[in-house]
């Protein structure tokens, strides 16, 4: 990472920064101390908007809302974006057969949901499984349709992150708008880019990783607009701060933790790892160093939550990751074409199918290699602390050594 050039601030501005930090800390303290999370046991009554499709079986249907898992009779008709009033008894985080009343609905959510399902149905009409749901995951962050076995293979090989909307998707969406700046005023293009990022993030369901990427992307584009240098690590911290202020529960979200740490790892270590992997073929070392950098901070958290981690992940990622940016861009073009020129969409869908088939075959194959899972006792906090302090120590050591050398 480049060293940041900072002027030594005057005493007055130092005081200002101190005051700002104090106010910020107070704000956080207030937000967290007044926040109430979901009840784990006992009676619960709340009103919330349904933000997923209910899974309907013969007699029962299941859905998650506001941190609760609900089991309700399948006759109950509810749809995405409905505002539900729910009252019942919680047992181990689940409400069985509670009283559910539809008390309204969010137009915005319903429209977004319709657009999203329509886009998804295009993908499903042109492509077959598992390539179809993989493309839906890569372009729209839709994980709900992935075949169970295939999802398991993605998890085992440490490639499941490809179905999470991330910085790449956001940069493509914003890039499309910035590309327009040849034809319209640059400022307008940037405003359009910010709007596009917001729309896209809402469209994909505004999961914590997508919001993280969207906030960082927006900051980056605004920085360009204001003509300022952008500092990725600061924008990452700012994104995390904003998100946890708005919704404190996000800190407990696994997706948020992984996304935050992976991004931090890439910002901090990627360049350095790439420099020391220069002896490898170019097509390979790029994705390998990104993966290693991301994993350096993520691995302990995966251990903590799941108790196992994929040892083959860096290699698997290095081999298959090139397909994902290609599939994402081709996927966006395909979706647009499917509404205008179906014939062109068909041809593009074949190319996407081939790209993703490569991905699927290699992921399936590497998930079958048996010695690739490292297992560990989950939910142990001590190894986590040891790992990060060791890593921190190493970084300081290397910095010190470098400073000595350059002297």
């Amino acid at each position: 990472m480049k060293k940041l050039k900072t002027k030594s601030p005057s005493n007055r501005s130092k005081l200002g920064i101190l005051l700002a930090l104090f106010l910020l800390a107070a704000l956080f303290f207030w937000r967290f101390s007044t926040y109430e999370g979901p009840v784990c046991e006992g009676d619960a009554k709340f009103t919330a908007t349904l933000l997923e499709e209910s899974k309907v079986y013969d007699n029962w249907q299941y859905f998650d809302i506001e941190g609760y898992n609900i089991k309700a009779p399948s006759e109950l008709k509810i749809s995405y974006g409905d505002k539900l009033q729910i009252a019942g008894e919680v047992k181990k985080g689940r409400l069985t057969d509670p009283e559910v009343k539809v008390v309204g609905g969010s137009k915005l959510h319903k429209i977004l949901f319709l657009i999203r399902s329509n886009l998804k149905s295009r993908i499903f009409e042109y492509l077959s499984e598992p390539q179809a749901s993989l493309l839906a995951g890569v372009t729209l962050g839709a994980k709900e349709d992935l075949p169970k076995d295939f999802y398991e293979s993605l998890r085992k090989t440490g490639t499941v992150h490809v179905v999470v909307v991330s910085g790449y998707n956001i940069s493509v969406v914003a890039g499309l708008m910035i590309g327009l700046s040849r034809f319209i005023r640059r400022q307008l293009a940037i405003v359009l880019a910010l709007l596009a990022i917001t729309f896209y993030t809402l469209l994909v369901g505004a999961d914590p990783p997508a919001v993280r990427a969207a906030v960082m992307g927006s900051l980056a584009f605004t920085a360009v607009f204001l003509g300022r240098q952008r500092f990725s690590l600061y924008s990452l911290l700012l994104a995390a701060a904003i998100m946890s202020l708005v919704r404190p529960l996000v800190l407990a979200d696994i997706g948020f933790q992984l996304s935050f740490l992976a991004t931090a790892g890439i910002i901090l270590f990627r360049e350095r790892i790439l420099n020391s992997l220069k002896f490898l073929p170019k097509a390979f070392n790029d994705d390998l160093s990104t993966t290693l950098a991301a994993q350096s901070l993520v691995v302990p958290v995966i251990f903590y939550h799941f108790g196992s981690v994929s040892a083959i992940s860096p290699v698997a990622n290095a081999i298959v990751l090139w397909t994902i940016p290609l599939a994402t861009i081709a996927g966006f073009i395909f979706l647009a074409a499917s509404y205008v020129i179906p014939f062109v969409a068909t041809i593009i869908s074949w190319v996407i199918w081939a790209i993703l088939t490569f991905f699927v075959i290699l992921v399936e194959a590497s998930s079958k290699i048996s010695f690739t899972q490292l297992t560990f006792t989950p939910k142990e906090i001590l190894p986590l602390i040891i790992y990060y302090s060791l890593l921190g120590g190493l970084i300081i050591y290397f910095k010190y050594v470098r400073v000595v050398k350059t002297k």
Partner: protein
Amino acid sequence: MIKLVGSFLSSQNKFRAVFYSVIIGNILIWSFLFSLPDGNLHLKIYDVGQGDAIFLRTPGGYKVLIDGGPNNTILDYLGEELPFYSKKIDLLILTHPQSDHLTGLVEVVKRYQIDNLWISGTSNKTRLFSEWQELLQKRNIPTTVVKQRDLMVFPDKTQISVMWPKSALLVSDINAYSVVVLVSYGNFDALLTGDADKQVQPYTSDSGHVEVFKVPHHGSKNSVDLNYLQTISPDVSVISVGSKNSYGHPSPGVVNLLENLGSKVYRTDKNGTTEIVSDGKSWYTKTN
């Protein structure tokens, strides 16, 4: 965007672009070649858990799907079965509208082009069935309520004949109205029975020997009639059933009966997907 495409095509990345194109091209060409019909009939009784889903590929490459199973596993099987350039199913048969046969078909109908649909004409009061009905109307799928002696012959001489239901029959049980079809190609016959159990056997008065018998109703206690079984004397019997299902399917008595009559018994819960391949003269079974 333009930048992205530009950087992809820049001279520095030319090698990469060529490399990727070779991979993509190879995948497309080889999967096209492997998708061409091999001149044999393939009948696959899929492992879909507690339910039925059966796929038939005729020697000329026509595709028939019978039932969709209790979940969306069928989509993965169809993804492997059908080539990337075609999402066409020539004939879809829903034996009867219960969830263990119907569930997977909802997505199949949304995603695939269905040229013909055969149904038994019975209905069900479930939410799933009303969703299915709406979908058929919306997608405008050519639907026929079939009865005994209805027939479809493909240009490669594969014949699908309806053995059941008889036109006027009044029983309250949806299972008893299941569509039963006989698949014939040359000397090879396979009887696919849905859930039409013992109470409606024999299905026709002129039944004869079959090579393959899909045992009705997941091998339940009342699935087969002894006399009828002796008439058809199947070489292979396949039971489509989920492991540890709550119904106790298949009944050990039925499995014994089939084995005592000299039939080889395959179960999807133990053998997985069971495939029968035939050239019209001889045939063999394949399991994974």
